[in-house]
């Protein structure tokens, strides 16, 4: 499964890129598991995802919890709590 992943704000700065295409293994089934998998991709990722509790996610542009299943997702985004307005 190939998924487009987007990073925003300090997650983007720590990972060192704004987006990439990833192919997680089949046993990565949820948003939380995807964060854990990404954290193992290298030093920058480990830093970005060191505290997954403070990271929010969206699947196909809708807010998603850590338990949300990623099957069928085209685009998953990770970012800090929002500070708009």
């Amino acid at each position, binding site marked *: 499964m190939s998924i487009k992943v987007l990073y925003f704000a300090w997650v983007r700065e720590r990972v060192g890129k704004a987006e990439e295409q990833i192919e997680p293994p089949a046993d990565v089934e949820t948003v939380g598991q995807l964060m854990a998998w990404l954290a193992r991709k290298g030093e920058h990722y480990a830093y970005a995802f060191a505290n997954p509790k403070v990271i929010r996610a969206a699947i196909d542009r809708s807010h998603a919890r850590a338990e949300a299943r990623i099957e069928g997702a085209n685009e998953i985004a990770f970012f800090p709590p929002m*500070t708009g307005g």
Partner: protein
Amino acid sequence: MTTSIRLQHEPIDIAAEVAKLAGARSDVGAVVTFTGICRSDEDGAAITALTLEYYQGMAEAEIARHVDEARARWPLLGVLVIHRYGRITPGENIVLVATASRHRQAAFAAAEFLMDYLKTRAPFWKQVETADATAWVEAKTADDAAAERWSAPPPRRDAAK
């Protein structure tokens, strides 16, 4: 019902936007606007600029969902949401929410509702630039609490007149 949602880098021409919102309708009795402005200090430190990053595609969709929700809750005749992105200096506007209705309570409630949601759910992130550092603004628990109050059942429509 006039709805306009826009993300832009350019400063918001508030007077022109609000005139467009109410201008065409003769049943509008109340217009409420909220303008968010870049302050010159944050927690006592002088601000050089704010930089706003956003998630293109999702931001528009999230705002549209909240506008639909506001329309379902209150009898609105017009809603306008304009949010800027990019680098913004103190004194400049950041966001404009304007609501039009026959009566004031609906216009006030809808504008507050939209602002509370923009603060906590719309995918925007602010970075503060001071003389010697840049830092991402942290989300405030007070904003989450403000957004939470809309989870209660909406007010009865006849009470909002």
